[in-house]
């Protein structure tokens, strides 16, 4: 029997295990459709805020000499309300709506905007490393995480995912707080706070100076986080960070992720990366005689 690429992250079911990560190409329904057709199991939207944000001036993204990408887009987004209207026609695409905010009420209001939309899940961005008062500054504050997760869980029946990253506290505590507050799954990890300086002009390259490192450089770091979380807690995990090949995907499954997200790989290899990963994973499953993704999840933990 042909193995199946279907996977479930808690109660969230996906046809394919690789999703588009938040913030990458994620502002238009037409593009979501295209990515879904090209093999993504789901798409995560850009992180939406209660008001539209222009984000930082350029340069906001560039490729790092030596590998990977750095960005400080500054969470530019059309705002939850505009965005919700745009995706209202959506029927087919599993869309995970990523939200960013500073207080529980922000999240509650935004979720309300999506009441007429076909939303597969909400992902709470508790981990953007380069915008003040949101993202990591929220994720690093356990009391706030608790309030936000609780509020969000009371505002929707859809699965709610917390996206964590490396901040100034132990991210494992954020994971624990989120779990205790009823979160359905964890996405790990966001970009890692970083910087690059141009030696000719002697300036930080990004207009925001600090940005987030993504892509291949952070893969080994993301993988250890998934392994750490899955070794410590019993919660569905979505692995994210530097995934660009099917081998990377398998590594994350073995470490304990039930599904994965990718962003930077699109900058390196364009959107056929989904199809390439799907094919490679399927081939691997045949060789190893697995019929479902689930069978491999967490296998590396037994050593």
């Amino acid at each position: 029997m042909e193995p199946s690429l279907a996977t479930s992250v808690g109660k969230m079911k996906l046809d394919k295990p690789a999703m588009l990560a938040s913030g990458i190409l994620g502002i238009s329904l037409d593009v979501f459709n295209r990515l879904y057709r090209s093999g993504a199991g789901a798409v995560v939207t850009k992180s939406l805020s209660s008001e539209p944000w222009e984000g930082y001036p350029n340069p906001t993204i560039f490729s790092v000499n030596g590998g990977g990408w750095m960005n400080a887009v500054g969470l530019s987004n059309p705002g939850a309300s505009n965005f919700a209207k745009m995706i209202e026609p959506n029927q087919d695409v599993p869309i995970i709506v990523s939200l960013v905010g500073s207080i529980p009420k922000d999240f509650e209001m935004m979720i309300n905007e999506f009441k007429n939309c076909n939303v597969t899940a909400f992902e709470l961005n508790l981990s953007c490393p380069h915008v003040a008062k949101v993202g990591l500054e929220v994720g690093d504050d356990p009391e706030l995480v608790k309030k936000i997760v609780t509020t969000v869980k009371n505002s929707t029946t859809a699965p709610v995912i917390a996206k964590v990253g490396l901040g100034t506290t132990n991210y494992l505590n954020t994971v624990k707080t989120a779990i205790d507050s009823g979160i359905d799954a964890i996405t790990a990890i966001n970009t890692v706070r970083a910087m690059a300086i141009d030696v000719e002009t002697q300036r930080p390259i990004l207009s925001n100076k600090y940005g987030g490192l993504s892509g291949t450089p952070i893969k080994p770091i993301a993988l250890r986080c998934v392994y750490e979380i899955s070794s410590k807690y019993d919660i569905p995990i979505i692995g994210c960070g530097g995934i660009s090949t099917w081998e990377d995907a398998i590594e994350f499954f073995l470490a304990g992720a039930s599904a994965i997200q990718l962003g930077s790989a699109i900058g390196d290899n364009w959107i056929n990366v989904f199809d390439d990963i799907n094919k490679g994973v399927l081939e691997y499953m045949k060789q190893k005689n697995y019929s479902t993704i689930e069978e491999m999840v967490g296998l590396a933990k037994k050593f």
Partner: protein
Amino acid sequence: MQRNFNHTTIVTIEKVVDETPTVRTLYFSDDIMSNVLPGQFAMVWIPGINELPMSVMISNESGKAAFTVRKHGLASTGLFNIKTGEKIGVRGPYGNAFDIKQGKLLLVGGGTGLVPMMRLLTHVKPTDDVTVLIGAKSKDEVFFENLANDLLTNNSHNVIVCTDDGSYGEKGFVTDVVEKLVSDTHFDGVYTCGPEKMMYKTVQSAHSRGIFVQASLERMMKCGVGICGSCCVGEDLACKDGTIFDGVHLSQNKEFGYSHRNKAGILEDY
């Protein structure tokens, strides 16, 4: 170390030429940028100010390239104000290239949309018959007319300027001239870059008559490499799938000619 095309390389501006009161060309040395394909663009970093997509302008000196910039908002004005000896950053080239047909060609450019047209002219065959249409609001906004004529000395050619106010060349919109030309003559290829309404009408005129036509689209571009999504036009990403699209494709795109996204990603009508 091999050059990382996606990482900014710093270049020094060697010469600045005023084309009109609001348009300047800034020359610099860079082998890679000097050899881009017609239609390709670069992301141009104006240190401390912004980074913008810019079509790569030709230079008549080998190993050199240029940007021709119209002073507009903060970012483009920042670039416009760069002086000889100052440094900017470039990464790329990005985007696809015009598919250059042979025979009777029509190039339709408005404003800085003429930049890729000039490079296209350096790629035509001596046997091609080339018509260049230059659109501008008024006389003092016309530029590259001489350059176009110079580049075409070895060709049967015709450079036509239209100004909205009739202060120079033909009076009226460039798109009216296009409609007239394509209804009179068969062209083997029509190429356009400039204001979207101009491109939209040009594409309609040509495509409805079965003439091969390509337009180079401008959208908000933050990354230039297909990551940020800011440049989407329907399901296309202008930076990665384009910037050049042909009439067949464009006639199916519901945003082309009608709407574009602003810095926050909100769809706005033209």
